[in-house]
């Protein structure tokens, strides 16, 4: 499996207290554990099972994911922040890996 690559898209400009859209995605096959490979062997389940976003260390949103979530899991949400700070994104893999990304938010 290629190394999962996380991506996050924020608007160019963010104002204090004004809602903005956060688009997130990570490249990952999300193996359901229900599929067989070309030799007929069951491909073991391996998914991103949890996605957590925090702002200045406080939970913003967490998502528990099941195999019914598409490959390259995409999650979009709306948030508003009172001040500048750091957005921290973490994706937890079944194999124990954690993929993370950090974004600075500077409010206008």
């Amino acid at each position, binding site marked *: 499996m290629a190394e999962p690559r996380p991506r996050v898209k924020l608007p160019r400009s963010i104002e204090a207290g004004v809602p903005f859209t956060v688009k997130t995605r990570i490249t990952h096959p999300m193996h359901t554990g229900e599929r067989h490979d070309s030799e007929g062997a069951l491909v073991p389940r391996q998914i991103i099972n949890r996605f957590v976003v925090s702002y200045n260390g406080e939970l913003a*949103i967490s998502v528990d994911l099941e195999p019914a979530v*598409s*490959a390259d899991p995409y999650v979009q949400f709306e948030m508003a922040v009172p001040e500048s700070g750091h957005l921290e994104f973490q994706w937890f893999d079944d194999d124990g890996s954690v993929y993370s990304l950090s974004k600075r938010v500077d409010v206008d």
Partner: protein
Amino acid sequence: MAPTRRDVLLASASVVGSALIPFGVAQASNNVFEAIDVFTGGASRLEGGLLIDAPEIFDNGGAVPIRVVAEGARRIALFNDGNPNPGVAVFSFGRFVRPEATIRIRLARSQTVYAVAEMADGTFREASQKIAVTVGGCA
């Protein structure tokens, strides 16, 4: 009177529509209601206050976009009744985030998607939507 172009289009649209949506015999093929009961602790669910925004027909069952919104919700869970397992995702919202999220999901075949919201006062809301997929996603 000869049928107008509009009549013909409407008639063919309804034939295609009914061929795509065999929901008359819709029945859960997994234990979706048990899974919902685990989420709610068996509490009853009210209608209203929870919106599922999703296509009624979608070509690619491998990545169906679903948006859920429930003003005042602490958590929103998504379920399906036609994949091998009923769970899809559970969103938990902190104070910076609006109780709304969009995610892309796999639907193995045409089926019903359920959303259940846990509100700030501890009550639960439920909404559901039938989604027809033309090519099932391998779930």
